[in-house]
């Protein structure tokens, strides 16, 4: 008999809290973890509480429904109804362009993807757009939309194209949202096990019908997540709006068609409104800027909550056992 085997019974395996048996490096590690975690919580709380306090001080429901007017006095300058509608409008245009394009690209990349070189090239291109600074995209937009060929998308008088409109801003913003939708949809599609596709093909459906009727509905939570993330980025973008939307306080439609004129004209969004009215702009009304920023953050919060709800609901009927 071996003395060692019966000498001591094995210790029950359980995580040991930091104690005197730990090495110094480990103790420093855990201390750093807690310290930095607490610091991060403090900073996050400070920012959130700052925005909350400033928002509650300055937000009134009347601000949401009054048109903005110009002036140097706080009482003269109205609310931010136009920027609010502008944010929703520009987000709608961006998502309307990015969603079909993004889902189509993701489906092609993950389900088809021949020739391989083209597929890899498209993948790299989408990744490059994800890393491009929005100011570079805005400059690209000024070049493209000032050309006479695309003059119908913004105001033009006598053959000279203005180049700034909701169409222009929305189109470039769709480039911002596109990589998020593509990557999220691809992950969702790749998470579906192959036996599902094979079963569908075995039953006789074409590949496209498989995609349409089985894969996309299953991957719908990922598509929604990607769309919401893209929407969040689109709503918070400042540089593209400032350069491509004209930053006029109210909607200035080009032409007389009710919706088309607005889309071809200039306007503003909550982000450019905050930019202009903060001390960094010519408006110099911090109270309105904080109120608008609060509304913006509230919209982002609602969006994030929606993403969470969709994610939780999707886990009920997911394919992962």
């Amino acid at each position, binding site marked *: 008999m071996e003395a060692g085997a019966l000498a001591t019974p094995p210790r029950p*395996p359980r*995580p*040991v809290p*930091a104690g005197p048996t*730990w090495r110094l490096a*480990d103790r420093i590690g*855990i201390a750093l*973890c807690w310290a*930095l*975690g607490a*610091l*991060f*919580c403090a900073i996050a709380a400070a*920012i959130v509480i700052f*925005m909350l306090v400033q928002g509650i001080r300055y937000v009134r429901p009347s601000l949401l429904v009054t048109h903005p007017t110009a002036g140097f006095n706080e009482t003269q300058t109205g609310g931010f109804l136009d920027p609010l509608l502008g944010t929703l409008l520009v987000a709608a245009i961006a998502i309307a362009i990015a969603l*079909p*394009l993004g889902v*189509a690209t993701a*489906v*092609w*990349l993950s389900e*088809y993807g021949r020739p391989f070189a083209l597929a890899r090239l*498209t993948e790299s*291109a989408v990744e*490059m*757009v*994800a*890393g*491009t*600074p*929005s*100011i*570079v*995209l805005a*400059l*690209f937009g000024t*070049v493209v939309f000032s050309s006479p060929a695309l003059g119908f998308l913004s105001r033009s008088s006598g053959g000279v194209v203005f180049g700034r409109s909701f169409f222009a801003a929305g189109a470039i913003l769709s*480039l911002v949202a596109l990589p998020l939708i593509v990557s999220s949809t691809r992950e969702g599609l790749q998470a579906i096990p192959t036996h599902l596709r094979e079963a569908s093909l075995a*039953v006789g*459906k074409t*590949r*496209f*019908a498989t995609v349409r009727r089985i894969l996309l509905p299953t991957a719908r939570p990922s598509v929604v997540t990607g769309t919401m993330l893209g929407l*969040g*980025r689109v709503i*918070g*973008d*400042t*540089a593209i709006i*400032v*350069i491509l939307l004209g930053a006029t306080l109210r909607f200035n439609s080009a032409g007389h068609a009710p919706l088309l004129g607005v889309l071809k004209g200039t306007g503003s969004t909550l982000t450019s409104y*905050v*930019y202009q009215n*903060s*001390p*960094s702009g010519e408006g110099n009304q911090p109270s309105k800027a904080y109120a608008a920023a609060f509304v913006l953050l509230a919209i*982002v*919060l609602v969006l*994030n909550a929606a993403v*969470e709800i969709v994610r939780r609901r999707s886990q009920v009927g997911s394919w992962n056992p």
Partner: protein
Amino acid sequence: MHDALLIEERPHWWSDRRAELTLGALACGVLAVVLAMLVFVVTAAWPSFAHNGLHWFGSGGNVDNQIRTIFLSGDQGGPFHWQFHAWPLLWSTILTTGAAVAISFFCSVFVALFIIEFAPSSVREILQPVIRLLASVPSVIYGLIGVLVIVPFIGNHLITQGQKQSVAYAISLNGYSLLAAVLILTVMISPIMISIFCDGLRAVPRTWVEASLGLGVNRWRTYWKIAVRTARPALIAGTVLATARALGEAVMLAMVSGSVGFAPNPLDGVIFFFEPSRPLAATIISNSEELSSPPMKHTLYAIAAVLLFSAAMLSLIGWVAKQPMKKYAVRG
């Protein structure tokens, strides 16, 4: 036989071949737009590079004066001036982005570990949405917080009179500084890194962690040696994304970094942190109203081309760094 089992699809117009071609065409449309962007930006940037050669990236002369000369030459109709040595701007970009990413990476790893494992669950529930919210705050708000809180604090409480006088012949130290820029940029890009690191840590198979704990390894070493090592692809992805965001940040840095084309000198000691500078993206937005002057337009597009190129290089570096880790990957 059984209609429920046999699902016959008549060959519709959306047959497989056509569907593939349509989807492929849409995807290639996206590719075409991105390639067009590359072509446009590089074409518009070419005159500035052509007139300056490699000296574009070098130093020599006051960058702000060069910008002013370029703009006036185009605005007032004389012969165009092109001379532009962008080194102070490049150095400022390298400093702010490098420092912010380094500090943020160090902190984010620990914060992500904290959130995933060591935090009490109530704190964890609150932190997840808060992080996502922080990642979506527009950069103007960060700039405002910087201008209203951080810059006056640095200017009035951290910089001494003696320091100001020692450099008074060249620049004024008033709080708009490298320190303010790096601090706020770090806070700005941390939520991105933290959320991606958290996703990566969560994807580590629970069995691996429990096996390690079962062998008697203490909690810290388990997570540090096993979970963090496994999540290395996520660490790289998060770093690449955060670096891209830091490179492209224009509005906040234009408000907070001092906006002077000055290359901070590390040999200045403590004063180095208080020196003003101006990164590339902030230069574009500071001069965005001067696009009407042709040589200025080409110079600004040249700066944009440099930013575009660095974004592409980042993606490449990220891909290269992930390759050796594929054999340890949890998911392909």
